C-alpha cells in the first residue's frame, strides 16, 4: 500500500485532476468531504493534510509520496526527493513595494530594508544573493498590510494574478521565485517500495505532461 499526502486548499482540485489523468484515483473534491484518509484501492491511500504539512509527512515516512506547492518546500530543509513538476497551481513569489516607493527593480534600494513575509527562508536566500541587508518580519497573514501600516518597506509574497497586490496599492519590484505543484517522495520509500512507487511516479509524470495546467 502506497500512502500519498495531498494538500487541502487551492491545490486540491489540481491534485485530484492529475490523479484522475494518471488513472490512479477518480475523485472529486466533494467526494472527500471531511475525510482525512481515503483508501482508493488496496494499492493507494490518500491522506489530506495542510499544504505545509505535506513535506513533514513525507520526510518522516508517514507518507511515501506527496503533492505540494514548491512554495511550501522553500521553507523546509529537505530530506525528500522532488521528482516531478506537476505544472498546475502556478504562482510567483515577488517582492513588492507601495506604489509611491522609490524602490525600483535594480536601483534605489536603501542600505537596510524591512520586509514583511510569510516566506522567511526563501526571502533570506534572495536578499543574501543580492547582498542586501534586511530585517525579515515574519507574518502569518495579510502581509500586504505591512507597508501600509509602516511596519515594513516592502513585502515578499505569493501572487497568482497580481490582484491582491494592486488592490493594496503595491507594485511588483522583482520576482523572487516561481512555484508550481510538485510530486515529492520519501527517500526510503523510493527504494524499499520497489516498482510500485516507480510505476506510480511515472504515471504521474506522464499525466503532468498531458494534463491542461
Amino acid at each position, binding site marked *: 500500500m502506497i500512502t500519498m499526502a495531498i494538500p487541502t486548499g487551492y491545490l486540491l482540485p489540481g491534485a485530484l485532476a492529475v490523479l484522475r489523468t494518471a488513472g490512479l484515483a477518480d475523485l472529486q473534491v466533494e467526494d472527500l468531504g471531511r475525510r482525512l484518509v481515503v483508501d482508493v484501492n488496496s494499492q493507494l491511500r490518500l491522506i489530506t493534510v495542510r499544504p505545509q504539512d505535506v513535506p*513533514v509527512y513525507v*520526510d*518522516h*515516512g*508517514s507518507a511515501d509520496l506527496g503533492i505540494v506547492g514548491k512554495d511550501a518546500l522553500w521553507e*523546509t*530543509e*529537505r*530530506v*525528500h*526527493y*522532488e*521528482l*516531478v*513538476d506537476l505544472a498546475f497551481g502556478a504562482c510567483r513569489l515577488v517582492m513588492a513595494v507601495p506604489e509611491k516607493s522609490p524602490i525600483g527593480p535594480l536601483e534605489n534600494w536603501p542600505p537596510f530594508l524591512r520586509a514583511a513575509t510569510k516566506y522567511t527562508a526563501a526571502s533570506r536566500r534572495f536578499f543574501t544573493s543580492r547582498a542586501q541587508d534586511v530585517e525579515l518580519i515574519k507574518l502569518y497573514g495579510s502581509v500586504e498590510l505591512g507597508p501600509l501600516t509602516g511596519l515594513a518597506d516592502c513585502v515578499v509574497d505569493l501572487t497568482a494574478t497580481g490582484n491582491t497586490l494592486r488592490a493594496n496599492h503595491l507594485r511588483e519590484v522583482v520576482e523572487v521565485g516561481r512555484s508550481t505543484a*510538485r510530486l515529492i517522495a*520519501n*527517500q*526510503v*520509500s*523510493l*527504494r*524499499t*517500495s520497489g516498482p510500485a512507487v*516507480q510505476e506510480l511516479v511515472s504515471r504521474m509524470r506522464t499525466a503532468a505532461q498531458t494534463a491542461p495546467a
Partner: protein
Amino acid sequence: MKATVKQDPAATGRPPGFVDLLPGQAGRRRDLEQTMLARFEAWGYRLIETPAVELLSTVETGMQPAALQRLFKMADTDGRMLAMVGERTVPVARAVAGQLRQAPLPLRLCYLGPTFEGHPAAGRARQGFQAGAELVGAAGPVADAEVVALAVDTLTRCGVTDFQVEVGHVGFFGGIMGRLEEDQRELVLDALAGRDLVELEAALAQTDLRAAEQELLLRFPALRGDASILEAAGSLVDNPESAAAIAELGEVHRLLEAHGAGGRVNLDLGAVRDFDYYSGVIFEVFAPGIGSPLAAGGRYDGLLERFGYPQPATGVVMFLERVQALASGVSLEPQQAPVLVGHRGDPADAIRAAAELRRDGIVAVVEAVAAEEAGLRARAIEQGSRRALLCGPDGRTEITP
C-alpha cells in the same frame, strides 16, 4: 514511596530535542551497543574514543558546510571556537592523521558515542547516537565490500531482519559530469544535493550532455537492481571514469556474494550523496517503515589528505535510534526481577544475605526498612519481585509473593 509535592515542570524539564532513555530503553541501548561493538571487534576493528567536543577548525576541515551550520558551537576560554561533534568520522580521521600516523596500515577502527546538533533538520532530535567502523589505508573493492558486509553482519546480529543495502558509486555520475563546464557542474550538483530532480532537469537542459546521459541522470532512482543493470548502464556511457565505476561495482557485488551478503544488496547507480566528501563506492541501508537510512557509508579517499596524511579510507556509520527501533532479541538486560531481601530489625542480616545471593549471580535488592512477612510480601508485589527473603537473627525465611 510516592512524592507528595507536585511535580515542577520547570525543574524537571529538558532542553528541546534531548531525551532521557529510561530504565528498559537504556538497558536495551546498552545491549545494542555491546552487540555492535562485539561484531566490529570480530572483524578486527579496534575501539577508539574521541571527545564530544572538537576544535571547530577540525570539523570544518572535514564536514559539509550545511552540516557545519547545524552544529552546537561555543568559544573556548582562549577564544578559539569549539564544536560539539555532529558525527565521528572526521574526529577519527583527525586522530589517525595525528597520533596514529605511525600505526601500521591498514588500520581498522570502530567508535561509538553521542552526536549533537544545535539546529537539526526539522523533526530530528538534537542528540543522536552513532556507531561506526573505519578502514583506513586500504583502497579497492576488497575494502569496499568489507565495510558493506560488516554493516550487513552487524545489523543481522542486532536482530534487524528486514533491510536492504543500496550500493552505488560516485564515479558513475562523476564521469558523466566531468564533461561539464564548471558553472554547469555546480548547478547540476546543487540540484542533486537538494534532491531536486525538477531543478536537475532544467540544469541538464543547458548542458551538451547526450540525451542518453541526461536520461540516466533523470531516470534516477530507476537505475537500480541486481548485477544485470551494470551491463545496461555500461552501454549508455562512454567515458572512462563511469566505466571504471561500473567495473568496480561489479567486483564489489561479486565479493559481497562471497561474504554471503549478496541477497541484501541492490546496486543503485542513482545513489548520489555528498559529492565532495565521498569518492568511490557508497552505500545506504534502508528498512521499510523507517523514513531515514539505518546506516550509511562509503569511500572517502580525500578526507585524510585534508589533515595532511593522504590515505584511502572507507567506513560505515550506524544510527542507533533507528536500529534500536527494529532490533529484536538482543536484550542481555537481566529479565529476572530482583530478589527482595528484608530484615526484622538489623539491616546487616539482609546485607549479608544479599551479598551471598549476588555472589551466585542472583540480582538482589536490600529493603532498608524493617518488616515482618506480610509487609515484605506487599513490598515484593509492589516491586514486581517474584521472590523475597526475610532475614532475622534466627535464620532466613523464603517468601513467595
